[in-house]
């Protein structure tokens, strides 16, 4: 009765069959019953019937048994699978530990690829994927006006258009207008300019955000004649108001006027377009500047508008409504004709220009990762060759091929995960530097973090990369013939297909590297062109500082003039500061003021069209300080004040475009900037062109007017002096405080430094792509080296024979280098057309060169050729030193 293991062994050989087991077991039961009945004296046939009767429904029981058996089988499989996996894992770790050189190189290669991808992805995630930090951010849109005929886009709204939209919209649940500048806070320590956003009453409704303390601005605050209220940002509240919990209700002085603090907004609340860590919000009607623009609407599009879509309205439906509103507005407000209202998701507007460069970088790192994968695949193929004996032995001993493939893939995924972990380390390390990719406003709104999503991305990417890199090697390892491998020595028993795969991979690396290098080369070339642009002014030794006069205290233009005159007199009194001026706005550093103008005596333009030029108000020394050259006529003098006829100096671009073959001197231009109305001014001079908006955009028409005839509430002081920034800054501050000790002097910088910062973004993306292309080049070089060097070691015998037959070392060297050249040419043949096809997508990021720039392509090809040569040189030298006798004897 002891169980006999014989059956069990039989069972194992054919594999488990739970259904047959159940049948056998039940049949045994019935037969045992029959045996017993016969012993009790039953006839065999009667005994069978009785036994079956006693058992009842055999089928039903059998059915239950089969189902339970299947379930058990499945469970057994699963547990076997896991125990196999643990075994694989152990084996893999042992094998990797045995080849530390290989492991380190493979892990580092993965780390570079995964690290670069994780880093760039963290920025993409922060800026493009993560939603804006507001309630239901998908419903927020930006409303802007554009003027198709002059290709102006994204302009703000004018006051009448905004009120029209606010009062009659069918698609928005709330609409808010906002405009930003700085007000002077006094009475709380040092006077300071605080970033201020003037908002319409619905502003906080649009964002549906609760205050940290007190209340937000309400509809009543927005009424004309209401008490002036202000909401502080949490950071401002902490730094300037000592985080006073009873701040609500107390009063603060802004531009010499009293405001009552309504509440405090939490640090998590960001204002689109005007985000600052320390800032405040006031009702638009209470703003000393913008408040005036709502009563006496000047013809400027100055207000940014954000709206919340009603829940049942899509962006496209809102867009359709905007299109129908525009003509109606134009008939109501003639100055609106030619302008078209439009709406776009807020997120897209906020991140607008960052998108193309992020996508470019993402593409570049993806290519780097592909190169890394190709490199590792090559390494694995080489390793598989040296391991072919081990694998053949295991197959011969009965391991099935699927198990071996699984085990090899386990090994690869360990490499991938180790590399991924190192890559995450790299990404973490480079994270802080990466914020430079974003403009300061975006940086705060979009903190770059290694959050769970980014980490998940890194892990999935490492698994995918290790799988990709491992496919070909596993394929060749499993396909090889074990008998052949065992018979031949290691190294020789290698399928020719595997060598071909290796060459293909190296050529692919070259091709991918071409694309990355061309991209980096194009950015580098356009950046060098960008910084080589002559801006039209000379900024060496120029220091700039901004002074803004509080408008309640300095309410009248005469006061602004008096202040500017006083300040200039004080500065000019020092011989080493004689070269100083006041002006606004400064080229490139400040936003441009574009105004429509009319040439007196010309026929009127068609309705809805206008000629425009950028406007600058400047004191007479401005042109001298900035090195802007006079071409014709004269510059301003001290005599051009408000008692004299109004004059204007125009730029060459304006003269050329609007006075072709005419003498502009003596002609009249009619234009005006707030608070002045339209004034007719005589053209007295023509000066050289200046890049007013940015280095990258072409110089446009400019109109300069004397500060004394068109003063502003403060301006930018520019001083050319050899004294050094700190000394000049002190002098400006001293002179300013001698006039009014409560005036803040801000944004003091050397002009070249400020200009340099204006190209920080293109410089950084060039640098990043440069780093990635360096990695790509290095990996491609390693790839070529690996293939050529392995092929040399495999062909030692062949080389020996050749040398024995009289081949010179130079010839052997040519043979090896030729192999590398073949890879190079193949790579270039694929890479260059691919790069040509891809670089057009980066044309918006280029400046001054075409995406097909032949010089860049040529340099990249030569560079890769040099690298291929260098990579082949070491193995070639080794081939030349092959001793024919040793090589022939070794087998």
């Amino acid at each position, binding site marked *: *009765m002891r169980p006999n293991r014989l*059956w069990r062994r039989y069972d194992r050989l054919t594999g488990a069959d739970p259904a047959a087991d159940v049948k*056998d077991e*039940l049949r*045994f039961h019935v037969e*045992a019953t029959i045996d017993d009945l016969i012993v009790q004296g039953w006839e065999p046939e009667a005994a069978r019937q009785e036994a079956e009767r006693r058992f009842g429904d055999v089928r039903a*029981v059998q059915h239950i048994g089969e189902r339970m058996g299947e379930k058990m089988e499945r469970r057994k499989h699963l547990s076997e699978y896991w125990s196999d996996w643990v075994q694989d894992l152990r084996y893999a770790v042992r094998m990797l530990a045995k080849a530390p050189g290989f492991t380190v190189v493979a892990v580092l290669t993965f780390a570079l690829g995964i690290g670069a991808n994780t880093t760039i992805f963290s920025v993409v995630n922060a800026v493009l994927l993560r939603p804006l930090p507001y309630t239901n951010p998908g419903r927020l849109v930006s409303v802007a006006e554009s003027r198709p005929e002059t290709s102006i886009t994204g302009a703000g709204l004018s006051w009448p258009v905004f009120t029209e939209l606010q009062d009659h919209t069918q698609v928005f649940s709330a609409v808010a207008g906002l405009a930003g500048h700085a007000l002077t806070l006094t009475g709380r320590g040092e006077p300071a300019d605080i970033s201020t956003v003037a908002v319409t009453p619905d502003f906080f409704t649009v964002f549906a955000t609760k205050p940290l303390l007190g209340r937000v601005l309400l509809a009543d605050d927005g009424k004309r004649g209401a008490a002036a209220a202000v909401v502080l940002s949490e950071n401002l509240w902490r730094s300037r108001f000592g985080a006073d919990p009873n701040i609500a209700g107390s009063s603060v002085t802004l531009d010499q006027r009293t405001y009552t603090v309504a509440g405090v907004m939490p640090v998590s609340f960001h204002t689109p377009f005007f985000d600052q860590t320390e800032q405040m919000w006031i009702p638009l009607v209470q703003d000393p500047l913008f408040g005036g623009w709502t009563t006496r609407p000047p013809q400027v599009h100055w207000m940014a508008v954000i709206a919340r879509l009603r829940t049942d309205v899509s962006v496209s439906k809102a867009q359709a409504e905007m299109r129908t509103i525009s003509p109606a507005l134009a008939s109501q407000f003639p100055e609106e004709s030619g302008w078209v209202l439009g709406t776009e998701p807020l997120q897209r507007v906020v991140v607008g220009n960052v998108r193309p460069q992020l996508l470019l970088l993402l593409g570049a790192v993806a290519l780097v990762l592909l190169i890394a994968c190709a490199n590792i695949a090559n390494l694995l193929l080489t390793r598989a060759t040296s391991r072919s004996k081990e694998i053949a032995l295991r197959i011969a001993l009965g391991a099935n091929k699927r198990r071996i493939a699984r085990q090899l893939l386990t090994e690869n995924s360990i490499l991938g995960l180790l590399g991924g972990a190192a890559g995450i380390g790299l990404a973490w390390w480079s994270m802080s530097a990466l914020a430079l990719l974003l403009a300061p406003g975006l940086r705060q709104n979009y903190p770059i973090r290694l959050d769970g999503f980014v980490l998940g991305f890194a892990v999935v990417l490492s698994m995918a990369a290790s799988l990709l890199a491992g496919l070909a090697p596993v394929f060749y390892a499993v396909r090889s013939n074990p008998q052949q491998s065992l018979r031949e020595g290691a190294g020789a028993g290698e399928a020719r297909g595997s060598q071909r795969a290796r060459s293909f991979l190296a050529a692919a690396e070259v091709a991918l590297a071409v694309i990355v290098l061309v991209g980096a080369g194009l950015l580098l070339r356009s950046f060098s062109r960008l910084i080589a642009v002559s801006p039209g002014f000379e900024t060496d030794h120029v220091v700039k500082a901004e002074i803004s006069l509080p408008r309640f205290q300095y309410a009248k233009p005469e006061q602004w003039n008096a202040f500017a005159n006083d300040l200039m007199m004080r500065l000019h009194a020092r011989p080493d500061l004689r070269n100083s001026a006041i002006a606004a706005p400064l080229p490139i550093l400040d936003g441009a003021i574009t105004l429509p103008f009319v040439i007196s005596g010309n026929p009127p333009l068609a309705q809805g069209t206008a000629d425009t030029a950028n406007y600058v108000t400047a004191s007479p020394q401005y042109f001298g300080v900035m090195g802007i050259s006079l071409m014709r006529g004269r510059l301003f003098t001290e005599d051009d004040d408000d008692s004299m006829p109004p004059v204007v100096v125009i730029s060459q671009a304006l003269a050329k475009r609007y006075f072709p073959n005419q003498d502009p001197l003596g002609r009249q231009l009619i234009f005006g900037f707030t608070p002045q109305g339209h004034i007719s001014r005589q053209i007295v001079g023509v000066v050289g062109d200046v890049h007013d908006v940015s280095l990258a955009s072409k110089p446009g028409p400019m109109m300069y007017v004397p500060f004394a005839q068109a003063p502003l509430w403060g301006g930018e002081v520019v001083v050319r002096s050899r004294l050094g920034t700190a000394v000049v800054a002190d002098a400006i501050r001293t002179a300013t405080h001698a006039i009014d000790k409560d005036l803040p002097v801000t944004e003091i910088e050397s002009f070249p430094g400020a200009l340099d910062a204006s190209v920080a973004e293109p410089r950084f993306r060039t640098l990043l792509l440069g780093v990635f292309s360096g990695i790509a080049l290095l990996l491609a070089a390693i790839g070529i080296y690996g293939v050529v060097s392995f092929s040399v070691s495999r062909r030692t015998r062949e080389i020996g024979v050749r040398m024995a037959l009289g081949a010179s070392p130079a010839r052997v060297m040519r043979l090896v280098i030729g192999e590398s050249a073949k890879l190079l040419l193949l790579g270039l043949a694929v890479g260059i057309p691919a790069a040509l096809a891809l670089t057009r997508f980066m044309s918006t990021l280029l400046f001054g060169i075409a995406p097909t720039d032949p010089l860049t392509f040529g340099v990249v090809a030569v560079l890769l050729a040099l690298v291929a040569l260098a990579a082949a040189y070491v193995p070639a030298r080794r081939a030349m030193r092959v001793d024919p006798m040793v090589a022939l004897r070794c087998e």
Partner: protein
Amino acid sequence: MDKNRLDLFRGTLDVLILKALIWGPLHGYSITDLIRRQSDEVLLVEEGTLYPALWRLETKGLLTAEWGLSENNRKAKFYQLSAKGRRQLRQEMQTWDAYATAVAKVLGATQPPLPEDIG
């Protein structure tokens, strides 16, 4: 004989099977045989419930099974108690004892219980 036959209470069969196997490995037929004889022909285990119960216990890991040869040289599936099964048996026997004692006390009572809160 049929009138003496008792239906097995739900859950009782499992503990009977475990107990039957305490003497050594058995196949399904001898398990019914053992239970029948040990209960003086009172407890008859139906095949339709016995085998599913055996398989369930096997799935739970309380029994292990092995193919072997029966007394008359037929291929039969032998069941054996696992360590886990042994533990389970001990526990269920205690539960059963407590249950049986309680039932016996109620059924054997000769007078109603004393009122609980005299004080």
